[in-house]
């Protein structure tokens, strides 16, 4: 009888402590989740602000000014635009393959 009582008492104690352990674990996870969600919101906001800053930094007037100062480019004219069909007759990507039997004609 005493053993029986001890067993049941032990069982109840084990159950109780197991339950306590679970609840503290869950609470800890909940706090962690709240912390992470707060960070996600903050990061999203930071991304939003950066997007706005990007649009400001890449506005056409600024890009044009920087290009004039740092790049040696001229406006594109129709002379600069060509198509594949404008390549000299006889020249084609297939013919200019280096590897293999075909060699570029000189």
């Amino acid at each position, binding site marked *: 009888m005493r053993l029986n009582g001890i067993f049941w008492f032990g069982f109840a104690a084990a159950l109780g402590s197991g339950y306590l352990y*679970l609840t503290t674990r869950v609470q800890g996870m909940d706090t962690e989740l709240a912390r992470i969600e707060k960070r996600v919101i903050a990061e999203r906001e930071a991304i939003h602000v950066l997007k706005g800053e990007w649009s400001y930094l890449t506005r056409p007037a600024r890009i044009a000014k920087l290009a004039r100062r740092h790049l040696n480019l001229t406006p594109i004219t129709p002379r600069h635009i060509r198509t594949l069909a404008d390549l000299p007759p006889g020249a084609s990507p297939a013919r200019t393959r280096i590897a293999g039997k075909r060699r570029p004609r000189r």
Partner: protein
Amino acid sequence: MSAPPREPRQRAASAPPPAIEIGRARSMLTRLLFGLAFLVVALRLVEVSLLTPSRSPHQSTNVERPAVSHRADIVDRNGIILATGLPTHLLFADPAIVLDADAAALRLAAVLPGLDAARTAARLRRPTRFVRLRRHLTPRQYYEVNRLGLPGLHFRPQRRRVFPNGALAAHVVGFTDVDNRGLSGIERFFNARLGAGGAALALSIDVRVQHAVREELSAALARFGGTGAAGLVLDVASGEVLALVSLPDFDPHHPAAAPRSARFNRATLGVYEMGSTVKVLTAAMALDSGAVKPGDRFDVETPIRTGGYVIGDLTPRKGRLSVWEIFAYSSNLGMVRMARAAGTSRQRDFLARIGMFRPARIELPEIGTPLVPTPWRESNSVTAAYGHGIAVSPLQLASAVAAIVNGGVKVPTTLLRRPAGGRVAGRRIIGARTSARMQRLMRLAVTRGTGKRAAAPGYLVGGKTGTADQSTGTGGLIASFVAAFPMDAPRYVVLVMLETPKRVGKNGAKITGGKAAAPVVGRIIPRVAPLLGVEPVLDAPGSHRDGGILKVKAERRNGEAN
């Protein structure tokens, strides 16, 4: 001695006192019940922790989410941000807690530019519990003020509407008030949709095209003087507006600082007698009606008298001119006679169908109502043939010209980006053959006529000049040019209008649409064509672009680079 001791024990065993037995039974039952209860708890624990399938991520109840959704962004067709909200802070003070008002005011003034220390100190001594010190602190200012560590200062998060591209699309995007409500432009037209938050609103505007138009327009305005200007680029197939510029414009962050004239949208709200650019419509109407054939010739020498005044041409000519010459050389007399051949009522109906009598359709609150004479008399028909006597907005005209050159279908204009490749429903205005004829006429007006300065090599520009003295308002001059390119298969319409440019040029010649507006178009098109994916025609004869126009030009050419 054995029997008698046994008897009492046995007697005790065979008839036990009921109390103990009952007690034991109860105790057993209780133990059983408790054991059962704990078993249930144990089983439930197992079930909850191990057996329940994972549901959607459980959201924590501890985090405060923003109660209101933020105002949606406005972006251009490529995702560039035109309007967005940035987090700021409102700084306010509780004078009851502020220790030293003067010192606090001085330290605040050191960090916040423009803060009047004396006035602030006085306000910090007021008997209230709330004194608003400054709205919309930037993050840096927020950090600095916080660092001061002054007691009695508090912050409240705010959202400030910011326009990263500044004045570039000011008339399109508009601006908001301090409570982030739209007051003009898209901000106002779509105020509800933007206020509800969510995905960004994508406009049809392309900031790169917008920038090119604005820059060239500004240069022309500076060069020719004038009170204002307007520029438009439309996609003829979809009706999308790629650029809408009105000058002067304003900084949407400080709209009140700009004069009234700067906030007036000359492209959509202003109505003007557009002058000879309307001849595109007259010619299209006359040809489509069948009353005028491409080979017909009309008298351009005899002046026309109507309604008490005399109509003549800017450059008087003799005899009879063909239809293309009348168009290319912009003869009023020829045009009037062409319109008369078609008839007054047909012309009126045509103008109505192509949208000249109703306000333009676009997603802006600032839309001007055209001035149209009612009832429509023959004299109105005469003047309307060369663009006088009715006042329309540049957007109406550009949209009508787009309908003429795109094969003959009027497509509603829009400032919202349309999904690529979608077919847009429109109204047929003229036949496809008339549209092709008008393409050739407009091309000739640039290669041989008054629009020579709009010729951008390689892009097959076609168009029509307009020089109109306004009979209403202050009577200024409107110099304009409406173009479409590439003319063998038009994709875009470009319209430039200069308001009251100087009347006279360097050598005393009168400023015309051909001199002031056409060159602007001639500079805009080469800048935007590569952005819009329009391939230039190569100079070498025998190139691939077909369409009659190029073939004819190749035959006539002898060393010209066009």
